[in-house]
């Protein structure tokens, strides 16, 4: 019997388990697969404040950014356990401090504008966001990124933008939650698919799994893109749907070509778009393994994993337009994942009044890695009766009109 059962061992579930255990609760994490086997395992590991309009999601992102830094600092590790590739590149700028054992890197983000008009809009957005930033004139772009194309109109630099290796982040949070505190315990049950809920009257008192029942006072649905399916097992509607994205991975480079996370202004509008059709924008960044990750595409095509050459071609073309030196660099892999999106692009965080005992922490779309710690932290506050640091009403589970769910 646990205090809390977390459904989902992705980064959001791991953060929920971590903060609940730190708050003194006994936690059991249940996942049908492995740690970080779903959308977390397909992520780039972005921790962004730059791409969000002012509002509840930006507030969540700013809180989460601070928590990620704390987590990386608290759990030490310098990444010296070595994820170097054969060419041994570890000298990524901004690296060298504590990385939490999950390659935390406060690399900073650079949003670039193709035209003066877009540059004006970017500067306006930055002023409204009220987060640390610097407006970069065209002439100074290469001080940030020497390999950038020369026809850009300027950009905005966000020093708080950071990156983690998302699978390691999830795994380490679960490990730290299990090892670090002693007050609460954290158990993992992997390979156990949730098939239903245990109820006491209306109240949710546990989950039924393919490997037996697990009982607990509270159940957190952190099933990501599959959060709607889990909610349905409890008889409540939650409109979480997949939004597919592809990432291209290059060969490891001997010299880092790209220092920060660099993306075009179109990314900001695409993230907030409601279109079901294909949208792409260039998002380019280096990793500690020496590879360059290239995104981002968005399309609503269900759970179709078939590789789309036209999408990969567009990602490549946009990346080359931004960094001409990438033209001769080889892509060696690509993968796709399914962002869990809700119709209003906000996550679902908090207690579900329709099923007492059930809490949700899902629907973070493409920002789940970044928003995970704040989500876990706020839910732990709710579970222990502490007033949460942020107003959770914009994220409440029953906010969707019935017909959309």
């Amino acid at each position, binding site marked *: 019997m646990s205090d809390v059962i977390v459904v989902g*061992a992705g980064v959001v579930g791991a953060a929920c388990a971590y903060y609940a255990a730190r708050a003194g609760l006994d936690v059991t994490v249940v996942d049908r*697969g*492995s*740690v*970080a*086997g779903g959308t977390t*395992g397909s992520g780039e590991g972005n921790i962004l404040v730059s791409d969000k309009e002012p509002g509840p999601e930006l507030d969540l992102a700013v809180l989460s950014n601070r928590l990620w830094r704390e987590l990386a600092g608290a759990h030490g590790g310098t990444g010296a*356990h*070595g*994820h*170097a*590739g*054969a060419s041994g590149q570890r000298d990524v700028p901004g690296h060298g401090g504590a990385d939490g054992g999950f390659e935390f890197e406060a690399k900073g983000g650079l949003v670039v504008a193709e035209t003066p008009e877009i540059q004006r809009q970017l500067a306006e957005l930055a002023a409204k966001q009220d987060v640390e930033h610097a407006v970069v004139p065209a002439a100074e772009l290469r001080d940030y990124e020497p390999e950038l194309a020369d026809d850009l109109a300027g950009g905005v630099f966000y020093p708080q933008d950071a990156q983690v290796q998302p*699978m*390691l982040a999830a*795994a*380490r949070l*679960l*490990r730290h939650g299990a090892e670090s505190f002693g007050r609460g315990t954290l158990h*993992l049950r*992997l*390979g156990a698919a949730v098939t239903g809920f245990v109820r006491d009257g209306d109240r949710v008192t546990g989950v039924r799994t393919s490997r037996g029942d697990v009982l607990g006072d509270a159940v957190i649905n952190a099933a990501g893109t599959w959060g709607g399916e889990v909610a349905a097992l409890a008889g409540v509607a939650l409109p979480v749907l997949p939004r597919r994205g592809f990432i*291209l991975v*290059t*060969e*490891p480079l001997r010299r880092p070509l790209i220092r920060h996370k660099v993306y075009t202004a179109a990314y900001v509008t695409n993230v907030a778009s409601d279109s079901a059709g294909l949208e792409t924008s260039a998002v380019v960044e280096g990793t500690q*393994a020496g590879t360059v990750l*290239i995104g981002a595409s968005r399309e609503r095509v269900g759970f179709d994993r*078939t*590789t789309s*050459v*036209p999408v*990969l*071609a*567009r*990602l*490549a*073309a946009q*990346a*080359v337009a931004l960094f001409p030196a*990438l*033209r*001769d*660099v*080889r*892509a*060696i*892999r*690509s*993968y*796709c994942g399914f962002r869990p999106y809700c119709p209003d692009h906000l996550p679902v965080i908090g207690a579900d009044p329709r099923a007492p005992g059930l809490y949700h922490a899902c629907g973070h779309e493409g920002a789940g890695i970044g928003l995970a710690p704040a989500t876990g932290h706020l839910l732990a506050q709710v579970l222990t009766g502490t007033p949460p640091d942020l107003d959770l009403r914009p994220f409440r589970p029953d906010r969707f009109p019935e017909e959309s769910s």
Partner: protein
Amino acid sequence: MTYDLVVIGGGPAGVAGALTAAQAGLRVALVDASVRLGGQYFRHSADPRPAPGLGRFLRQARALDRRADVRLRHQVWNVTREPGGGLTVHATAPDRTAVPLAARRVLIATGAYDRPLPFPGWDLPGVLTAGGAQALLKGDGVLAGRRIVVGGTGPFLLPVASGLAGAGARVLGVFEANGGLGLARHPLLALGKAGEAAGYAAALARHRVPYRTRQAVVAAHGEREVEAVTVARLDKEWNVLATRVVECDTVAVGYGFVPQIELGVQLGCRTRQDVDGSPVLAVDAGQRTSVPGVWAAGEPTGVGGWRLSEVEGRIAGLTIAAESRAAGSRAPESRALEGRTDESRTDESRTDESRDAEGRDREGRDGEVAGVLARRRERWRAFGEALQHAYPVRPGWQGWLRDDTLVCRCEEVPLARVREARDLGATDARSIKLLARPGMGWCQGRICGYAVSCLAGEPPQPPRRPIAQPVTLGALAELTDDDPTTPPLT
């Protein structure tokens, strides 16, 4: 323009399939990554002792050259089903530019690659796969004076060792991890391959090469390159019983083959588990995969050697030609090519094939493949499966590893990190890869994938490699414009 058939792979299966279809009048392209046709088995035509069947293969290859568009040094990185029902084979040319080929049908004949097992020191220069050692045979005089140890399991070790010895290398031993019976009772004999087995035995005896069963190379030693290996006597499960050190400068090891099926997996072809647990493409009696328009032949449908590959390729060529005719998709220009088939009268395969093709015509799509070919395929399939039974990989090899033994050489992942990933909650090979990076480097897990699956305690899964070969971002970017060579398909 659209090809009736694009064949991927220029080994025995691909060449037989392409030639059969071209002789039936189809417009055919064959794409292969290397500089000459032949695949793993026939590529090294400069071997002092020509492989059995080489002459026949070379005749077929020459005949094909006149009848099909043969594109060597082209790497296929993706095959896509187009909305119109056709297929696009995405290749890159030697100058790295993008070459998309439009096809009505595709034959996957991509062969197999060596399956190595990791052991301490296997990352030292001088440690080669058995197939890699064969490549040494081409270099002039490279081998003279070399002291080579050959190890692993399976009958492929025999031609490798006799080839190396024949080329002037000193082969210090062939260490076969399976079978306690020795060459005199080699499974090749039981399988009716007495002549072939005796030939290898004689070659090894002539060069005084010892053949030892239940022994294996379990470690390689050296500062900058291999200077010696540890050879172990093994029990049935390949646990080490006793060891000795053998000084040498080259080690060739191979533990069977991994069928190369990622293009089929990309297309969504159904897979099945072969006798040895390898995922292979499932095909019907006509070599069709579960995806319309996509055929497979040779090792991707189950490892069985060049004879099986060739007969599967021919059957695929025949059923493709029959279906192509039934669909009325025979392009007018391919009839012009047909006029030239007279030149091929000398081909031993020619007359058989036209007869078979006509037989197929009468029987229609549901008819059986001509009896003689079907029976031949049956026989060689049974032979391949018997070899897989006789030469399994036993679990004891995992005990040869130390904490610091690299499991993945591309990403330099030692065993300890794989164990750490399991400890952190990775329950399968994919999550081990996500947490510890084995298989994320250049080879995309082709070398270490089998070992990582074993360490994860699961059978190897169908490989997900959406980009099957490296492709420059520039070449990829070229594909954003509508390409005139890939019109809408019918």
